[in-house]
């Protein structure tokens, strides 16, 4: 019974908390820019508004276009369900390991790109091309990061990796240092943050993610926005699980959750602050500098794996 309960918690928590994480990042960014900000509940109001609006859909849209928001939502929810956030006792995690998690992100990316190409406007196809450009470099980089971690845990199962990292003696793994740096770069690129993309822009020449969802409106846009926040949440919890897993519960008993939940909240708060600081203090890259940025991440990931093999730890 605790298994099912634990899985249930790990699905409901992201759905409810993900928009708040986004709201928190925006709030900190506002503070850093000396504005008062809209508060951490603004994304919820936004979602509520969008769900109530009529959806305007292009007359050229095919069924693929209507179906993609739901699919994206499903993909990101599953991704959250298999990443150990509060406890490592997840029955669904056996269905998909670290490689399948990357596959899941790739599935979502390919669907959103195809949906953007479906309407046949210049923005949509440009966004799709750029998203795939970011994707084909970020995806192998993320894989190398996960491999560095799985070499330590001797497993590609996320729960096993996290248990290995969290419950061994406290040790600093040199390979994880490189992997961690690579992960930060991938994190920024995959979640369309500055310096790769700017979530606040609608300037056609700079946008990636916004160009992809330009034709969506109403409930479909709401799902897309919610999906984006779920993705941010998934990446944050993945980073926590791989690099700062301390405090995670092995069994989802109420008492262990009492420790796990506040520690997760604290870590997410910190990540939000760091993200906001990084975004405030960096400028957006030209799109042709993005491959260099991501190639750096990829190479760091490879160096991480090499370090593990060279040092044998």
């Amino acid at each position, binding site marked *: 019974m605790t298994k099912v309960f634990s899985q249930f918690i790990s699905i409901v928590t992201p759905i409810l908390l993900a928009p708040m994480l986004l709201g928190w990042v925006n709030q900190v960014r506002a503070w850093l820019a000396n504005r008062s900000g809209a508060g951490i509940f603004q994304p919820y109001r936004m979602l509520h508004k969008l769900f109530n*609006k*009529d*959806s*305007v859909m*292009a*007359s*050229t849209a*095919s069924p*693929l276009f209507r179906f993609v928001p*739901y*699919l994206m*939502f*499903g993909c990101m929810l*599953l991704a959250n369900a298999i990443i150990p956030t509060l406890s490592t006792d997840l029955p*669904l995690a*056996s*269905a*998909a*390991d670290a490689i*399948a998690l990357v*596959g899941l992100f*790739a*599935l979502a990316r*390919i669907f959103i790109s*195809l949906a953007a*190409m*479906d*309407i*046949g*406007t*210049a*923005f949509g*196809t*440009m966004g*799709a*091309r*750029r998203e*795939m*450009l970011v*994707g*084909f470099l970020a*995806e*192998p980089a993320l*894989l*190398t990061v996960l*491999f560095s971690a*799985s*070499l330590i845990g001797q*497993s*590609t*199962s996320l729960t*096993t990796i996290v248990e290995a990292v969290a419950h061994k003696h406290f040790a600093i793994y040199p390979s994880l240092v490189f992997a961690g740096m690579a992960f930060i770069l991938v994190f920024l690129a995959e979640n369309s943050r500055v310096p790769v993309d700017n979530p606040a822009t609608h300037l056609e020449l700079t946008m990636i993610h916004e160009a992809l969802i330009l034709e969506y409106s109403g409930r479909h846009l709401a*799902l897309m926005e919610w999906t984006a926040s779920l993705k941010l949440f998934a990446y944050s919890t993945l980073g926590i699980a791989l690099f700062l897993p301390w405090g995670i519960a092995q069994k989802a008993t109420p008492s262990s959750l009492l420790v796990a939940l506040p520690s997760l909240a604290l870590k997410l708060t910190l990540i939000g602050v760091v993200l906001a600081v990084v975004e405030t203090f960096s400028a957006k890259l030209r799109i*042709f500098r993005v*491959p260099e940025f991501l190639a750096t991440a990829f190479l760091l990931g*490879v160096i991480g*794996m*090499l370090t*593990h*093999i060279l040092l044998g730890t």
Partner: protein
Amino acid sequence: MNIPAIDLVLWVISAWMTVGLLGIVALHKFALVSRIFFPIGALAGLVLAIVAIRALGSGKVETKRLALGLPQLPFHLRLDALSAFFLLVIGLASFGISLFAAGYFRAGEGTAPGLLCLEFHFFLASMALVLIADDAYAFMVAWESMALASYFLVTANHRIPKIRAAGFLYLLIAHIGAIAILLCFGVLQANTGDYTFANMRAQNLSTFWASAAFLLAVVGFGAKAGVLPLHVWLPEAHPAAPSPVSALMSGVMLKMAIYGLLRVTFDLLHLHIWWWGVIVLVIGLSTAIFGVIFASVQVEMKRLLAYSSIENIGLLFAAMGLALLFRSYGMNAFAALALTACLFHVLGHALFKSLLFLTTGSVLHATGERNLGRLGGLIRYMPWVAWLAFIGVLASSGLPPFSGFVSEWLLLQSFLFTPGLPQPFLNMLIPIATASIALTAALAGYAMVKFFGVIFLGQPREEKLSQAHDPGYFEKIGMAWLALLTIGLGLAPNVLLHLIDPVTKGLVGVGLSHRASANGWWLLTPTSMVRASYGPLYFLIGVASTCAIAFVLVRLLYHARLRRSAPWGGGHPWRNSRMQDTAEGYGQPIRQIFEPFFHLDRHLPKPEDTAPEYHVVVSDKFWEGVFMPIARATEYVSAKVGKLQQGRIAIYLLYSFVTLLVILLLVPMATR
């Protein structure tokens, strides 16, 4: 009812040959050939698949001697698990392709329908014969008939000079490969004069000769498979051939080369030398990366798929190389894992790549266009083809829960085991290899999004595309068969692992299946539950149920309506379908990032041009770097030799006379 499986295979082969010969009788009876003969050939393929499954299940090795061909040189035939597995590949893929071909071939193909029928079925029959051949003689006869039948099929439309050129290039490289294979067999029989595989198995070659045989096999079979740098025929021959033929060549024939290399390296040779694995691994990885990068910049749909095939062959070679590496260190369980990844991908790729080539055939027939820049929006006019192609595209991109992902997953799993290798140099190689596999998989997604997005999504780039429509029943059934198998393979990989089991047991002595299915058939656990697991069915149910719940909740809680209107497009007042990304535009980031890989010929318009023109041609550096110098040297030499040929009888008589004199001079010297 206990007919030996090998007899049944021979029956299928002779059925194919009979159907082919009947094609000559009904040379121009189009309806008879397409509606009756091709479906019969398809049924024979299905029978072959069933026979192969039975043979894999029974696990018996059957041999047979056929008194065919030259006197004293009977055909030795043998059916073991490895042959049976590849027969299964032929059977499953050919059923779909033959059904499609039944609807596809029409009057204007350039060759009489009866003749096409003959070539097509002889092609199938010779491929099956390659797999059960058990001596070098039978093998080479079958191998060469396969090459010739496919050559004639490639040049079906022989009135177009470009197609003839592509056909010659294919024939040339096929024969370079055939020579290497023949020499390889020559080395393997070790001067015993007995060319049966049984004799080759019994020989104990020295390291030098075994390596020579191995290298010849890599060159010979590599030329057929299309690995670097012998890949140049592939992107020429595939677009030239009619689509069912491209499907058969790319999906099935390339796998015959994989079969041959597996047969020679794992069955006929017994030495385990570590650098063999490294060579195959490095060739495979460079081929994979090269193929996928070129696939991403192609502007012609069948060339794109051809380069994607090169990529997949590269992945197969990489998996095979890894298996060789593991075997050389006696880690047979891991070798079995890598081999399983290889074999799984053999079938997976055979199915989804055939499917994709068939869909291009439908698009070609419906629109008359093969250039991506003139397609678009076909999902509205050809929904069947589009959605079936979509399944192929998702599998080809290596996305869960489709079949491409399973093989990629198994391959990455086997790479992750390599830290156990006892050699530091190899251990350094592995992370780089793993990273290149990951990069290849991600780039494959890029190429496939381009393929699907530009052809089927967006707005039609030409007026006439709105007249396009779905093909007939035969074509739909053929494609749907391949699509269903692709889905099934992705969702229940353990079923196929069960069939692969006897193959890996035969080659490296270890089977994976009992461990892989230890936690139920729906969960794939190649080593142990703790180490790694993947449950595609769970995966699908997880995504599908969350989708459904989201859909129902949104509908229940909110009652907003849906309106249709013109695309917003950033609010620009006018737009047309030409504003979409072209195929060139979609390839632009790749051209920029991987510039050193390409030979670019680009013309950019200047601001003062009154009639601005833009073109970019991406070509292969191997042409200029490797093949053209060889061709020029050959021409130079033959021009010099040509001076001997004066065309006058007197001169030739003089040559004969001089030769005679020289011989008369030499004979006494030799006899003394």
